[in-house]
């Protein structure tokens, strides 16, 4: 479906890049960079000594920075005044820290330390009943009190994770070597019995075309996004993506889903719905496509899954996709003189619920926190806890 454009892109980008003029190997580049860095360091020192004034209005986007940053009267340098405890209490924030013995732990809102393991995490999430602790090679679940847990090995280096909107299941998604399909392994992460381990819960496995991206799912319905209108032109009617493009819906059905909704990436209000026979295959050939608020699509969404979840999930996915993804939210703010530092730190994290974005580097005394929970977005310097690696990203 997209090989034509992709081939053109590959060849044209390579051809264009190869036309680079010879001047780009200028040996003076490094010395110019070194000199430029020296000027920036001097300017920062002067700026730090002069700042600490009251209200600051930044840039053309004009948001008001009520500076949680204040001058330290003792030595004249900038002192951050968003403390770890303020972030914990006001934003329910938890942090991943490394202790002196190399153990990674969650510092929770109550100030308790919950041990996770010895492998350096790439990310840690808070789910309904557990922390999800992801490293390069595996995903681990740990109960909130740290007493129970289970590990899931990643299939390959490209495996990544998704969390459903209920934060009750995670998906380990592994693309194949050719990037034509992705294997999905869905794991129940609810720990209703404190002694039960999530590893005992049944897993759900299916394989779908790489062109489909799983956005959300329930017990009965899976919602994906994909490019639909370049094939359908946005016209309503029955189409046969499964038959003609091998979407993998048979596999999704065999995994126990009753319906699939696919939201178009160009026009998110355009949806295709497939009715599945759970555990068996397609309930009927073809997918019904059209505007989500049309009678035909509403009927299809409501009829396809017994628990009526398809309609709600599709509409929630559309809402997330219609110009409101997290990057759009945070990308519009002008951070003024802090912008370079914000985007060039060792790590940058966005709250899955869209309340804040944070950037920082392991070992630095202060990080930057962009809080959008109030009427005005506020940027502040945060003093993270000792040994901090990253914030815990919460889905609940």
């Amino acid at each position, binding site marked *: *479906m997209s090989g034509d454009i992709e081939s053109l*892109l590959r060849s044209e980008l390579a051809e*264009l890049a190869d036309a680079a003029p010879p001047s*780009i190997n200028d*040996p003076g580049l490094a010395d110019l960079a*070194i000199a430029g860095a020296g000027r*920036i360091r001097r300017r920062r020192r002067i700026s730090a000594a002069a700042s600490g004034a009251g209200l600051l209005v930044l840039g053309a986007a004009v948001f008001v920075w009520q500076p949680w940053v204040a001058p330290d009267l003792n030595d004249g340098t900038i002192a951050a005044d968003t403390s770890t405890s303020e972030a914990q209490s006001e934003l329910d924030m938890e942090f991943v820290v490394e202790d002196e013995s190399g153990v990674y732990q969650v510092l929770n809102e109550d100030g308790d330390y919950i041990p996770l393991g010895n492998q350096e995490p790439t990310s840690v999430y808070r789910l309904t009943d557990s922390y999800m602790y992801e490293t390069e090679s595996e995903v681990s679940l740990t109960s909130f009190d740290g007493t129970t847990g289970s590990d899931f090995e990643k299939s390959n280096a490209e495996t990544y994770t998704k969390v459903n909107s209920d934060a009750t299941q995670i998906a380990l998604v592994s693309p194949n070597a050719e990037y034509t399909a992705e294997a999905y392994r869905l794991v129940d992460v609810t720990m209703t019995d404190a002694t039960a381990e999530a590893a005992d819960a049944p897993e759900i496995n299916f394989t779908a075309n790489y*062109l489909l991206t799983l956005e959300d799912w329930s017990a009965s319905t899976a919602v994906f996004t994909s490019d639909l209108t370049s094939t359908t032109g946005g016209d309503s009617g029955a189409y046969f993506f499964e038959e003609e493009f091998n979407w993998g819906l048979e596999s999704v059905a065999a995994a126990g889903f009753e319906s699939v909704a696919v939201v178009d*990436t160009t026009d998110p209000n355009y949806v295709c719905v497939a009715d599945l026979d759970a555990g068996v295959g397609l309930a009927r050939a073809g997918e019904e496509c059209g505007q989500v608020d049309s009678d035909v699509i509403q009927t299809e969404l409501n009829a396809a899954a017994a628990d009526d979840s398809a309609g709600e999930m599709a509409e929630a996915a559309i809402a997330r996709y219609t110009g409101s993804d997290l990057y759009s939210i945070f990308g519009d703010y002008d951070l003024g003189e802090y912008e370079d530092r914000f985007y060039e730190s060792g790590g940058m994290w966005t709250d899955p619920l869209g309340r804040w974005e944070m950037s920082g580097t392991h070992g630095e005394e202060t990080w930057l926190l962009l809080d959008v929970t109030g009427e005005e977005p506020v940027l502040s310097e945060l003093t993270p806890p000792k040994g901090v690696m990253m914030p815990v990203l919460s889905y609940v």
Partner: protein
Amino acid sequence: MSEIKSSQDEEFREYVAARSAALHRAAYLLTGNWATAEDLVQTTLTKTYLAWGRIRTTDSVDAYARRILYNTNASWWRKRSNREKPTEVFEDRPDTSRDFTEHAAMRDAMWRHIAVLPKRQRAVLVLRYYENRSDPQIADILGISVGTVKSQASRALAGMRKRLGTPSAALGLAMEPREAA
């Protein structure tokens, strides 16, 4: 100048000598003209040097520099978007000998489309189709999720396909609605 700093500077010069051409090529594809690309690379190298003492011994120097390159470009665009149109025209295009065939027309349309793409979408295309990075690698460089990488690429390709007059139709890939069996 201390011996340590001198040694670090020499390492930085070696890094620049080895990688600046690749950075320039990526910068050109992101910005659309060589002058802006040179500014972008110079800024990237300056910022990389600011962090050199911290990153020089890691395996991720190049990943760090690339992250700066892509994010600085996005940052520039945000800062300038209120007063400048983001419609850089790709300059110095090679291959002037080709006839204006249907393929050439399609290529021109493709560049016009790329020139007005949001910076994030353009970055995803360059990383995926020029640098041949995997989607998880792109997500890491741009600081976004893999799902966002895929959706951004999908949006860019969908828009491009529309602009090119749905080449999928031209290639016989488009479908018409038909009666379900």
